[in-house]
């Protein structure tokens, strides 16, 4: 085996340009690695499509010269529509659902010359923090196969960290890109809400959902963001912000950068080992000319509650379309329309999804709507304003991405409150529509990765990559999982 997939994208690009390798070599290797792997990172592989793409790309040498991402295998979270390739949302409900249209991001992935090799495992309908709600089994953490990869984009994190492919797309409603990236030692960016079109992303909570990428390093993450952005006139929430080169500040020093740390992010809710690593990083930044202040952001402690109300309310409505009539699972021999509805949904959805639909429906009903939903929107707005105020004084906000490192499989399955609390530090970013990125800053005593969470003002992803790349360069962590660890 050549182990091409351990090389950086820049190195691979040089090999492709000098025609020492072809895209097919990379795809061959990806499928070889996937076959040997026990990560359960994929729900569906698309060998036929991937090799067809290889043939197309080999005829398109122009694109090879233009795009650094040409020929690079990519995994797509299984809640992103892929034309002709089943898109299950890790649910029995959509086990056989084959989209007739590609998501907007798939057009971008193809335009850049990337090759989709398969659909990554996840929590059912992205509802979970451990990927244990998947109908197709739980993806595992390549650093320790007895632990979770996180969620909901657990399969995406697992396959990139496990070296199965260099890039994966995920979606982030309340931390679902950043938390698994932290658990698996990856760079994972949730861009500004609206930065990447949501068309073709199967909705969980529409006002929070955002697609983003998970990669092995900062530069490659910025490259993928370059490829995915652009206004989509078919998504009314898609931003008209100018496209830009997100790599442009990478390598710059951080002299004079003004950084804030919310006190709540460094409170007792965070594991001591993680706090220590973050403090070390803060010292590193100070030594290099950045200022770091501790500040208060309002309502951070309510983030999980807000999330439960808003996300579940929206989810209960978004998932109403799965009625057994036009697509998806349909129960056998229904005796009436009501029977068709209730049995198709009872049999098609998993436990966590049903729980969230019920809670969400309850919270939106009658007087509860004013008591909970309207109130939650008000607090969300306050939180947003509090962030806005902070960004008037500071360039970036940082803190730990998670309160703990990846924990053993099986934990939290019966305790939904616990898994929500995993996301307490990442949810506020979705609430405020801000961009957030995870960058690895070290390991705990069991050698599980620890991540730093960098939050930027809206549309300031480039500045976040600047800081992330600086940390990456200074720390020089060995983030390659030992070979054979996951086989």
């Amino acid at each position, binding site marked *: 085996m050549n182990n091409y997939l351990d090389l950086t994208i820049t190195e691979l690009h040089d090999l492709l340009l000098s025609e020492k390798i072809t895209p097919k070599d990379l795809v061959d290797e990806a499928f070889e690695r996937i076959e040997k792997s026990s990560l359960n990172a994929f729900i569906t592989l698309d060998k036929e499509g991937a090799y067809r793409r290889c043939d197309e790309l080999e005829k398109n040498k122009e694109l090879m010269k233009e795009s650094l991402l040409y020929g690079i295998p990519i995994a797509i979270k299984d809640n992103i529509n892929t034309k002709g390739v089943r898109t299950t949302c890790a649910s029995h409900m959509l086990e056989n659902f084959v989209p007739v249209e590609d998501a907007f991001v798939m057009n971008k992935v193809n335009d850049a010359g990337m090759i989709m090799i398969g659909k990554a495992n996840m929590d059912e309908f992205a509802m979970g923090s451990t990927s244990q709600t998947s109908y197709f089994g739980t993806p595992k953490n390549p650093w320790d196969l007895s632990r979770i990869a996180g969620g909901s984009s657990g399969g995406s994190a697992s396959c990139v960290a496990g070296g199965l492919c260099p890039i994966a797309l995920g979606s982030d409603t309340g931390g679902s890109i950043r938390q698994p990236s932290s658990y698996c030692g990856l760079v994972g960016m949730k861009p500004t809400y609206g930065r990447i079109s949501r068309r073709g992303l199967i909705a969980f909570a*529409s006002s929070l959902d955002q697609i983003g990428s998970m990669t092995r390093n900062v530069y490659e993450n910025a490259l993928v963001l370059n490829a995915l952005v652009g206004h989509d006139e078919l998504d009314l929430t898609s931003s008209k912000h100018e496209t830009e080169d997100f790599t442009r500040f990478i390598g710059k020093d951080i002299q004079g950068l003004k950084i804030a740390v919310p006190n709540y992010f460094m409170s007792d809710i965070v594991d001591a080992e993680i706090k220590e690593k973050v403090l070390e990083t803060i010292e590193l930044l100070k030594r290099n000319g950045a200022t770091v202040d501790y500040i208060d952001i309002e309502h951070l402690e309510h983030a999980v509650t807000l999330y439960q109300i808003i996300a579940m309310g929206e989810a209960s409505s978004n998932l109403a379309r799965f009625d057994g009539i036009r697509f998806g699972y349909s129960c056998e021999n229904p005796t009436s329309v009501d029977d068709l509805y209730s049995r198709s949904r009872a049999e098609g959805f998993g436990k966590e999804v049903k729980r969230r639909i019920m809670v969400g429906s309850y919270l939106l009903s009658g007087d509860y709507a004013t008591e909970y939903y309207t109130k939650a929107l008000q607090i969300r707005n306050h939180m947003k304003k509090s962030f806005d105020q902070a960004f008037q004084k500071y360039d970036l906000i940082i803190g730990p991405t998670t309160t703990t490192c990846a924990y053993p499989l099986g934990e939290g399955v019966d305790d939904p409150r616990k898994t929500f609390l995993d996301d307490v530090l990442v949810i506020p970013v979705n609430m405020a529509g801000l961009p957030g990125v995870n960058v690895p800053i070290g390991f705990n005593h069991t050698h599980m990765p620890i991540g730093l969470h960098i939050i930027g003002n809206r549309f300031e992803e480039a500045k976040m990559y600047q800081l992330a790349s600086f940390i990456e360069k200074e720390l020089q962590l060995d983030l390659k999982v030992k070979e054979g660890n996951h086989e």
Partner: protein
Amino acid sequence: MNNYQKTIGIEVHCELKTKTKMFSDTLNSYEGSENSHINTIDLAYPGTLPLINHGAVQLALKAALLFHCDINKTMSFDRKNYFYPDLPKGYQITQARTPIGINGYVMIEVQGEKKKVRIHDIHIEEDTAKSIHQVDKSYLDFNRSGVPLIEIVTEPDMHTEEEAMAYLHKLRELLVYADISDCKMEEGSMRCDVNVSVSMNEQLGVRTETKNIGSISSVGKAIKAEAKRQIEALENGEKIVEETRRFDEKDEKTILMRVKETGNDYRYFPEPNIPEFTLTEEEIEEVKQSIPKMPDALREEYHELNVNENNIKTLIAHRELCSFFEQVKEYDSVITSNLLTGDVLSYLNKNNLKIKDIKLTKEHMRDIVQKIHDQEISSKQVKKLLPILMEKGGQVAILMNELGMVQISDDHALQQLVDQVIADNPASVEDFKNGKDRAIKYLMGQIMKASRGQANPVSVNRLLLDTLNKGDLN
């Protein structure tokens, strides 16, 4: 029984005349087979997102302006959640918080008395798919799914069937005139739900809602039947409960469909996929300018132009014909209104055509009026000419030539005809002398016949009377 006062509020849904649907770009059309105007958005496929049809927003704005509403310039949409097979998303996108128009009114007239019916709000929403039920199966046609609608909700300001019907006639007239909706109740592009309550005092009684009534006259019957039912129930000591009913046309009775659940069971919340947007002053002004003259103003104007009452009625009832009349009335409002409501309308009706489908132009009307004024064409000739113009077009003067429609106005030539006819009809001449006016008509007819319709009737009439009165016939 007479002590009860009825109180009526009406909700009307109208389909907007747009090219495409409210939240997708598929055609808003019922032509073609079932499920031929659908896409993944209309079917609520996973991953699809709504778009906004700004044409529909403008039509709704036009309606809100027509109904004298305050405009919510900053608009957002909401989801109304419920399960039904004809509702593919499991929710309807509507405007609960920011209806495009609020606090409007419509003036109605019942038995010569004017009355204001207040409009609570006008909001934009989407239509559902159509369910077609058969004995053991139901089918869904999604062509209607997502068709733009406005819902117009009144305050409970009406107290008689007549007022309710007058309101609906007025509403339809306004919407049709402003080209906002077809308002065809029989085809479902206008649908009515009626809220009725009865009470013996100032306090309103418990209301029921009777849904989807098929015609305006049925609305009157439904209100009558429902009020009667409620009064009888109250008289029997029963209580009225909030419920949804339907009207049985055959038995002229309302029938219970379902009892309303208490409170808000639709789980309304803001539609996160459609960001709030704001109408500009220019846009509002532009829509204001696009509102044509409305029937009440037209009636008054036509009256002043000496158009007769019947013609006014006919013109107002046919919006497209009326807008053609607007273009030609300057030539001669009486002649053109007669021609349009007479020969032209009957031709259109006979051939099931619309004015835009035929070749008749403004210039044709101008030329015909000119020829009539100059006495160069007889009404009989106009009758013959119009169908040709409507079907094939062409130029009036050239066509008249081709058809040999030359009017003989030369007195010398006409005198010969007059003399001939008088000589041939001594009996009629005798009748004339005996004071029988009928004889004139007969003689005129004979002369016109002899001229093959080409004689100028005014000249003939003059010459005939002169000749008969000369008295030197014997």
